[in-house]
């Protein structure tokens, strides 16, 4: 709900940012390819609507996902509380091998910060997640986040590659990624 999920994905996929991003209804779909030394990871990204009542649709998006990013806004404690709820829901209901990331977005708004870095880090640690502070606006840490996801995915299940073989030795793997809160 305005935490910047779509902005984060658009920064990664198109390298663009707009201050007023249309609110997402249902979910939006994006793809992006990342080449690592060891593998090429092809992301299918489901970027979901933020409002709480839309959560009832979420299972459709995280079904079969390999990774999930839970995003909150550092200027809103409310969004952090909702992020924790999401973490619990996804942990309980999604694929048990799902790799989860906690992302604190809008890091450029330091002067309006309401959620401390340590709080985010601690929450991530408790739940066995990786933690990133990002800014879709300034691009801070956005590529790093997706590189890390790609690396973890490539390492976690190199045998579960289902995609098409490319020329050469690299393999393409489709990874479904789910973005929420």
């Amino acid at each position: 709900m305005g935490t910047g999920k779509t902005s984060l994905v658009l920064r990664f996929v198109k390298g663009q940012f707009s201050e007023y991003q249309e609110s997402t209804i249902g979910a939006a779909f994006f793809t992006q390819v990342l080449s690592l030394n060891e593998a090429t990871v092809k992301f299918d990204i489901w970027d979901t609507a933020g409002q709480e009542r839309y959560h009832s649709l979420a299972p459709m998006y995280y079904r079969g996902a390999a990774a999930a990013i839970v995003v909150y806004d550092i200027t809103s404690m409310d969004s952090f509380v909702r992020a924790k709820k999401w973490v619990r829901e996804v942990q309980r209901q999604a694929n048990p091998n799902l790799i989860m990331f906690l992302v604190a977005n809008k890091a450029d708004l330091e002067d309006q910060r309401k959620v401390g870095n340590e709080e985010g880090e601690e929450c991530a640690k408790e739940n066995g997640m990786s933690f990133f502070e990002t800014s879709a606006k300034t691009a801070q840490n956005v590529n790093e986040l997706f590189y890390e996801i790609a690396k973890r995915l490539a390492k976690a299940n190199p045998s579960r590659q289902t995609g098409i073989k490319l020329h050469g030795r690299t393999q393409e793997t489709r990874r479904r990624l789910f973005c929420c809160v």
Partner: protein
Amino acid sequence: MYGTKSKIDLAFEYQSQIPVLRPSIHSRRANLTVKFQDLYGFTVEGNVDDVNVLNDVREKVRQQGRVWWALEASKGANWYLHTTIGQGSALTSSLKFSALANAITLKKLIKKGIPPVLRPKVWFSLSGAAKKKSTVPDSYYDDLTKAVEGKVTPATRQIDHDLPRTFPGHPWLDTPEGHAALRRVLVAYSFRDSDVGYCQGLNYVAALLLLVMKTEEDAFWMLAVLLENVLVSDCYTNNLSGCHVEQRVFKDLLAKKCPRIATHLEALEFDVSLVTTEWFLCLFSKSLPSETTLRVWDVIFFEGAKVIFNVALAIFKMKEDQLLLTHHVGEVINVLQMTTHHLFDPDDLLTVAFDQIGSMTTNTISKQRKKQEPEVMKELDQRIRKLNSLKADNK
């Protein structure tokens, strides 16, 4: 009403500013993308062919306007209101006959489109909004907006957040005046029905209603009649259960009406709700060009929510060949998005929706909904119970 009519009218004047582009082989080859403003002031991107299609649509709208004017001249200004046959009334048989004839004319006419200038008047009476409004004191809307001024609720907070994110860049909607008008309509409705409050998606619907109706009050009543009488109940409440029901009904219909597509998408593990949820919640306003969306709404307000199914099925049907060639979820979404974004000629869509899909009665759809409801409720309930047990674990 809110002194911005001239602003909205401005949007319509853009029509005349659109250059007539002749498609040359070169431009087609180059697939030149141009940005232009459509009939309701939205900036759209398309190629030269799209611009020409839109110009043809403008001409068709003008012709359609002449048809409506001619009917008004021969049958009287509000002829379309006299289309229901009074039961056991003292109507003479010739009057009954003319009412029936009018009803048939009207149904056909509405599928061909209501001219934009007549839309506010025709929508307001045919949808039942006028009747709804007539049951409360004249000052209802003004009193309501005054009474809720300055109140802060979760709904108003979400509305404020979404105002600049509703069709950003639109020449009227994305101005302080546009924001204020949209805010008043949405906030007023959130207090009228606290079960709905505010649901994301309604911002797009209400914005388009404002553009068409031109006064806040009429837009408000159209929103009310839409949510309370036209659409399935609980479409926007709490856990969107009504929307879940519609999605299941739609899946069944797709399997029946477009079995090859349904089988293919199932093999790709593509759940059609991934795209259709937005169509149902925003009534296509985020996917189809504005005039095409409003042509769909013309029929929705007259014939009911079953029309959404016809139109959604038509979008799949139109691209059957392409869809059957897809290998991956992303491709499916691409085909559907490219299709909807470029449907500048409403007749292309509506012809398929009503002539090829075949008619479905509201009764059939209602039966399907009843059939799906228990399963949806069970699923939603299970999800909530799981979440609650989770909370208990954590405590």
